[in-house]
């Protein structure tokens, strides 16, 4: 084994050790998060079912994440298509401004949004979180959808119009099915980002906490920690399933249209 391999191994252990600890302590019969383990139990999972505040926060998070995913993907479709097909003045500047939230510190985005919403007289709540999340998710959606739209041969759309289809019909029958893998990826990525986003949600949530905000509030009570571990385990399993689904969809789309497999998540 040479140095690089050892480095890679340590790197992987570092990356995944915390995630492996999650299910271990979720099934551990004891409130102290430390070895040695004290026996196997599923009581943290059943306790999970009884905490109403937790259920509410999960619902809030799902609500925010689903709506964020849809909006940022819709905006991403418009922006990616405009970028791939049209030439307009100050195109680079406009695109740059849209992509900027990708690199802006989230804390700055969160504070500025809070000030703007309050001075506009908005009631902060789930919809202000959604607005904030759409702001940070849209650049990701555009980045994903850009490659889909740029890979699309413009003459394919022209051919559909030439064969009697309207512009809208062409978009529906030709463009949309061909960029569908990109759309699915964008939905899933935006969903995931919104789901575990903390800072913006923390500043803009008001009285309706999302899951990460709720979890943070629970860290003050050590005896609640195993329940959080149990929830984390469920989330990890769900994330893996979603990722597998996204990748399967993407590969299916590629195979169906006979395109070369370039990139992807896995």
């Amino acid at each position, binding site marked *: 084994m040479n140095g690089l391999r050892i480095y890679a191994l340590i790197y992987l252990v570092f990356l995944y050790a915390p995630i492996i600890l999650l299910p271990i302590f979720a099934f551990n019969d004891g409130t102290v998060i430390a070895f040695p383990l004290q026996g196997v139990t599923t009581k943290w999972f059943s306790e999970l079912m009884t905490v109403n505040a937790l259920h509410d926060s999960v619902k809030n998070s799902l609500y925010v994440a689903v709506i964020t995913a849809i909006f940022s993907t819709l905006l991403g479709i418009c922006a990616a298509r405009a970028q791939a097909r049209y030439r307009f003045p100050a195109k680079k500047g406009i695109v740059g401004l849209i992509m900027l939230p990708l690199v802006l510190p989230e804390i700055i985005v969160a504070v500025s949004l809070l000030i703007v919403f309050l001075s506009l007289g908005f009631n902060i709540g789930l919809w202000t979180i959604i607005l904030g999340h759409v702001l940070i998710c849209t650049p990701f959606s555009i980045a994903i959808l850009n490659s889909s739209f740029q890979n699309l041969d413009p*003459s394919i759309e*022209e051919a559909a119009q*030439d064969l009697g289809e*309207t512009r809208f019909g062409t978009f529906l029958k030709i463009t949309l099915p061909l960029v569908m893998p990109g759309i699915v990826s964008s939905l899933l990525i935006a969903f995931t980002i919104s789901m575990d986003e903390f800072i913006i949600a923390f500043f803009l949530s008001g009285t309706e906490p999302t899951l990460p905000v709720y979890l943070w509030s629970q860290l003050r009570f050590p005896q609640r920690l195993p329940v959080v571990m149990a929830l984390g385990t469920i989330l990890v399993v769900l994330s893996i399933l979603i990722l597998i689904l996204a990748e399967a969809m993407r590969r299916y789309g590629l195979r169906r249209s*006979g395109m070369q497999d370039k990139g992807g998540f896995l």
Partner: protein
Amino acid sequence: MTMITLDGVEKYYGDYRALRGINLTIGEGEFFSLLGPSGCGKTTLLRTIAGFEDVTTGAVTIDGKTMTNVPANKRPTNMVFQSYAIFPHLNVAENVAFGLRRRRDLNKKAKNTLVEDALDMVGLDGFGDRAAHALSGGQRQRVALARALILKPKVLLLDEPLSALDKKLREQMQSELRRLQRQVGITFILVTHDQEEALIMSDRIAVMFEGQIAQLANPQTLYRRPINRKVGEFIGVMNTLPAQVKIAVGARVSVDVAGLGPVMLTPDQCPSGAKTGETHVGIRPETMAILFDGETSDGNIANGMIHELAYYGDMTYYDVKLDGIERPVTISMKNLVGRPVLERGQRTRVRWDERSLVLFKE
């Protein structure tokens, strides 16, 4: 009968003038080609007919109807794209049937019959279930043809349809396209940069340079009587020699050609309104001949030296430096039985015919 009229068509992209005053009529059932180097505006012209580009000034009329403000999906034209633009998520039959989607008057069975007929016509019967990406280049081309022809357009537009195919397949498709055009009897407009392809396939050819039509003629006239040096050198191989028009009075045009000497030209060899002065004449390689040892000729003879040669198997191309001119002329000779291939530096005699000369407009 006239199918397409272009009347003073101009197209600007910003300040760039892509089409300059195009006037053109194309007949019903004609195989018409737009020929020119890349960037000459031939594809732009095709796209203005298809409706993908609007004209800045001027008018396009198809089948007696003005096409101003008529979008591509409402025009009686269909197009075969350079990339074929096969819909990758649909199979062959679905691709071909795409244009029938809006035809409410046809039931499913009638549509299937039409699709089968169209596939049959392009030699793809039985390929309906094939996925689009499982097709070869030639097959994609055929699908694109079937997809366009199934709508029975008045005009079929072909944008460099053969440029992506290898030589053998291209030649096969050239004759097949010709056959198909005769069979369906509609107007075909072909865009190509391949002069040979245009000559083989077309009834008439418009040669375009820099957004203008330089010459519009049938293949034989275009090859034998190119209007100027640019057209002549674009179509096939053309030897261009400096010349001086001595007398130009009515039918009498007397020209002194460098390397060949004084000749009399008939009016059909000259551009209209030829004037005295410096110009060029053109002569094709196959209208001149190397005289091998012992051969005699009662035609005109010029002397020169073999400067370079290229042996093609069936033909040999000689670059011969004629006495008195610096630039060599190309002469093509068939490699007949017993005919030797000369070597560089050898002296030779060249036979030429003044009937094959063409005087260029300067």
